[in-house]
């Protein structure tokens, strides 16, 4: 029930924040701050991802053993990996709006394109890695546009997260454990 409340709250915040930024990006008195907005977004993302990881992938691949999960899920007729589900969601958002964007990045990326690129990404991913449990918030300017950038630790929630990354031939790190910060969710909101 707590989770449901959180999702409802997150969705409501998302709706109101989108409405706010839709009116020229100015925050009304009593409105929510960019940090509240990204925190709410992250709560929804994180919850959905955990549900997919545990109730869909974990259950069907480990417990009931009826299907596999694979990076090449179409060719292998398998389930998409949780990280892929997350990216597909992010790409779908990118197709529909420029009011916010998000991505999954890491200091130890399997795909080097997901290594930090901007100074804030580099600083933030290092911060969440060095300070487990803490988030990182900063403003940055990219392509002449100012952004509020929030970076949240992405933790290995089940054993298979760690083992899959440890085994992958492109992984720069091979000793992840459950509970480790594996990377970060970077959410950006344009300001002004």
């Amino acid at each position, binding site marked *: 029930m707590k989770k449901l409340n959180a999702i409802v709250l997150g969705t409501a915040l998302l709706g109101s924040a989108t409405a706010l930024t839709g009116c020229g990006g100015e925050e009304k008195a009593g409105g929510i701050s960019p940090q509240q907005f990204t925190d709410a977004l992250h709560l929804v993302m994180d919850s959905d991802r955990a549900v997919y990881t545990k109730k869909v992938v974990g259950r069907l691949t480990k417990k009931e053993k009826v299907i596999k999960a694979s*990076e*090449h899920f*179409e*060719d292998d007729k398998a389930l998409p990996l949780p990280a892929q589900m997350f990216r597909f969601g992010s*790409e*779908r958002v*990118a*197709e529909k709006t*420029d009011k916010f*964007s998000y*991505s999954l990045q890491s200091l130890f990326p399997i795909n*080097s*394109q997901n290594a930090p*690129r*901007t100074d804030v*990404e580099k600083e933030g991913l290092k911060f969440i890695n060095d300070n487990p449990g803490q988030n990182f918030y900063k403003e940055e300017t*990219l*392509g*002449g*546009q100012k*952004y509020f950038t929030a970076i949240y630790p992405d933790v290995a929630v089940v054993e298979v997260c760690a083992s899959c990354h440890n085994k992958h*031939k*492109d992984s720069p790190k091979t000793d992840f454990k459950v509970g480790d910060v594996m990377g970060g969710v*970077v959410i*950006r909101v*344009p300001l002004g």
Partner: protein
Amino acid sequence: MKRLSWIIWTVLTLALSGYLGYTLVAAEDKTEFIVGAPTHGHFQIELACESCHTSPFGGPEILQNACLNCHEQELEAANDSHPVKKFTDPRNADRLEILNAKDCVTCHREHQHEQTMAMGVTLPDDFCFHCHQDVAENRPSHEGMGFETCASAGCHNYHDNRALYEDFLVKHAGKPDMLSETMKLVNDNVTSYLAEHPDVKALIADDADIPTQQVSEQDQTITEHWAATVHAQVGVNCTACHNNEQDEWLPQPKLDVCSNCHQDEWTQFTESHHGMRLSDKVDISLSPMTPAMSRLPFHQEAMDKDLTCSGCHDPHTTDTKFAAVDACMSCHNDEHTNNFTQSKHFALWQQEQQGLVPEGTGVTCATCHMPKYEEGGEVRVMHNQNHNLRPNEKMIRSACMNCHSLEFSIDALADEQLIKSNFIGKPSQHIESIDMAVKRTKQ
């Protein structure tokens, strides 16, 4: 004198403005306004300007939407590895300033015939450099390779890497040129159609519902031919195609009559270079394509043939064997086509027709250029001949790998001379992508 000059200038200006204004607004032929020859993909519809230039107002989104209007689904089906949505993240802002990967026209500029290369790309070949200059850090095997070779060496493709991604290369490594088990998709959609429609009764020549006043001596032969077709088997009578919406008999049914039942095939056909002039996405009504309009070599006697459904499928015989080889060869007159009858592929097709090998063993023009595919439990035939034509790596999975190994397929398709000879002989070069992928996996 000065005054006369002014008068002449004014008259000439008005005349020119009038002429161009009339051509732009009212004339059907707007050739004068074509700023440069369109690419091989679009020249057939070059006078349907507003198919792409949908509005005189607006920004780059006008052209972008026009590109997507025809090509979006194809890109999605190919699991486009560089979709626009991957570049909208603000973290790519600096890259987009160098190469705006959000717009198709950044790489595929139209009306730039002199600088248009294969795949309609107008950029210099080494464009991958802008984002992948550090490739050798993760792939030491790529050290020293020129960025102009990424796509041209049979290894990578900007949009469609379904047959080229690393794990796929590894999975299919080490197989013999000719696979021991070949894929033979045979369509028997009539049986499944009849099972789903138990009320349908097969028709015979006497059932033909052609109006008596339309019957002539020639029609007698036609009804006999019709009675032997799948159409008669599934209860499709004469009037199903020949009658219009008002139930009036049309001696020549409309061009798109087949689409009443064969919607998918018609849509695919109108996405191909054969049928694109008839596409409902073209803003003006155009005549069917003919070989005479094309830039490719064709037989002289075929120059004026209309490319419609009935160009390949005689509507009263529906002989798919004719459509699979003879229809193609009766028009196309290039080295690849003309060498087909000397190929092993053709020999297998002949053996199949003689009943010496199982159905589906023969390799026709259609086997590769209109490959069969399974959808919803049915075997369909791709009617867009351009669907897997360029880049030819698209053929690897849809055609070649039904019989050949991935390695042989990659090598064969990278060998231009072998393609011209219609695969008579072996590939003369070896593409090392599989070797490199396997080596890296072992490390």
